[in-house]
């Protein structure tokens, strides 16, 4: 019989990603015919516990302390380890956030178990849980089971609807955890200036830009500045998140006049991130199969390219507009501005 622990750091209320992982844990418990408990850590995890008080967890465990507020390996791993032990869980499920991803394998190691990250599906057949996850930079998907326990997992965002229930008051059982020997401290966050903020994980739309924006156009001109303005205007008006192909971010490194606000973190695809948004619009991209994989995780997809053979479109998008993106996006911006 499996026992399940949903685990998450808490920085105030739980994030959307964490609520999705909670829903996944609950669903797995239901389909295995078992129960689950909740483990939280932070400086004041009670608030987060209260937020999910009605989630039908059998227990709420928490490690509390100011030192557990920081996103830091030593304290995060210690807290998660303590919660894992206290719960006696055989399956531990957390969200794919930077904090949990940083420590889950170390925690599994300490608990004598095994870890799997980037889980995109959880199922149970005949009482045995199985997970789905990607290999080779999202190019093939495997479905697998494990004998080792505890099995420590991080589930991707966007794979299940977030848990949505009434808040209440959770009876939190404190779990003791030592935090001696801390040698690292978080001193801040570096974020692009608000008007340069182009990555918006929660946006409905992902706007993908390709190297075409910086290439010679049919009239023989390169129009990088116009491109820059069109893209930034569109992001401002639509609140979309900005993605880019590798070619386009690489141009940046090669010193070619290019879009100044892009960096490697915008890169979508095989060696870049694979964000999951409801809709995606790709513009001026070509990219071949291995590198358009990130695109696969977008729900509805449309593309604008001069090239009808565009690799982001053929067989991969719902609609391909064979058109000049400069002309189209200008009109789009005009319409959105109204």
């Amino acid at each position: 019989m499996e026992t399940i622990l949903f685990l998450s750091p808490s920085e105030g209320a739980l994030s959307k990603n964490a609520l999705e992982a909670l829903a996944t844990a609950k669903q797995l418990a239901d389909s295995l015919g078992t129960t689950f408990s909740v483990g939280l850590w932070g400086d004041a995890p009670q608030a987060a516990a209260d937020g999910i008080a009605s989630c039908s967890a059998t227990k709420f465990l928490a490690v509390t302390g100011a030192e557990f507020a920081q996103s830091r390996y030593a304290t995060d791993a210690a807290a998660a380890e303590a919660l894992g032990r206290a719960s006696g869980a055989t399956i531990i499920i957390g969200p794919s956030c930077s904090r949990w991803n940083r420590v889950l394998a170390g925690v599994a190691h300490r608990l004598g178990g095994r870890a799997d990250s980037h889980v995109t599906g959880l199922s149970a057949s005949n009482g045995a849980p199985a997970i789905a996850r990607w290999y080779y930079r999202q190019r093939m998907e495997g479905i697998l089971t494990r004998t080792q326990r505890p099995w420590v997992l991080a589930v991707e965002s966007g794979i299940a609807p977030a848990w949505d229930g009434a808040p209440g008051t959770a009876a939190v059982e404190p779990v003791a955890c030592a935090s001696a020997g801390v040698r690292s401290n978080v001193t801040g966050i570096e974020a692009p200036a608000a008007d340069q903020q182009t990555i918006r994980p929660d946006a409905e739309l992902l706007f993908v830009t390709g190297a075409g924006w910086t290439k010679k156009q049919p009239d023989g001109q390169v129009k990088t500045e116009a491109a820059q303005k069109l893209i930034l205007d569109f992001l401002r008006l639509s609140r979309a998140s900005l993605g880019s192909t590798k070619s386009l971010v690489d141009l940046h490194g090669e010193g070619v006049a290019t879009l100044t606000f892009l960096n490697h973190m915008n890169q979508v695809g095989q060696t870049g991130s694979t964000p999951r948004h409801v809709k995606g619009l790709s513009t001026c991209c070509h990219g071949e199969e291995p590198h358009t994989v990130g695109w696969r995780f977008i729900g509805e997809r449309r593309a604008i390219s001069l090239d009808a053979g565009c690799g982001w479109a053929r067989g991969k998008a719902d609609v391909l507009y064979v058109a000049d993106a400069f002309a189209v996006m200008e009109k789009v911006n005009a319409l959105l501005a109204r």
Partner: protein
Amino acid sequence: MPEYQIVVCGSIVPDPLQTLEPISGPAGPALKNEMMLPAWLDPWAGHALFEAANLASKNPGSKVWLVALGPKAKLQQVMMTLAQKVPFELVALDGPAGGFTDASETAAALAEAIQAIPGLDRSRMLVFGGWESASRGTGTTMQIVGEILGITDQFQGVDEIKIEASGALRILERIEGGRHQVSLCDAPPALLGWATGNLPEPRNNPQVGMANMRTIMPALQKAKPTKVGADGLTFSSVAVPKQARDTKIVKDLPADQIAAEIVEWITNK
């Protein structure tokens, strides 16, 4: 000036441009033609190595090792390219480098190899690796290496390291929303899983290649056969997803109309 001992863990992956297909063999899933595909150092591990070399060159007296677990013949081939990039000493383990090997087994082998490097001094040690591999793609190997080595100052998705005047390490990690978290770590030992970093790929330098070769060939010759696999795992399937959509191709529509369609689509919840 601190003299660092930087151990980089990294192995080979198929050149990302290749078409990859899974097959199932007696020992579980594997890549079709794995040994025939051109290979290259795992990209994020590559960045780790280049960052390590950069840090070492700025802190004279520092030294870089590359600990690589992979099929010896393929490792040898990749080393001929890699050796030209930056100076390092190779520690080779002869075993599989495929993505279906379990991270914990790979990590155990790597940690054992690191512990066997003579003269390592924990107070100067930095363990580098790729944040995630382009094969297994989990981002879980390095943490376990760190745990076995007893390093609890670990950082993942690192894009930058700077040494403060105090000797503390200032580290930038990627976090949600395209932001970076800034941490200060008092001193080594520390473990860093690198993302892209900020360095361009170094040029091929034949002299560096020649110098590296003095340790690479002997390291390959004495590469220890290493058995790693995926004990306890059972794959019910591994498949390349079919992703054919019926793409509606819209040609010869004026920009105005396309724009109207798009705006309707993006504003329609």
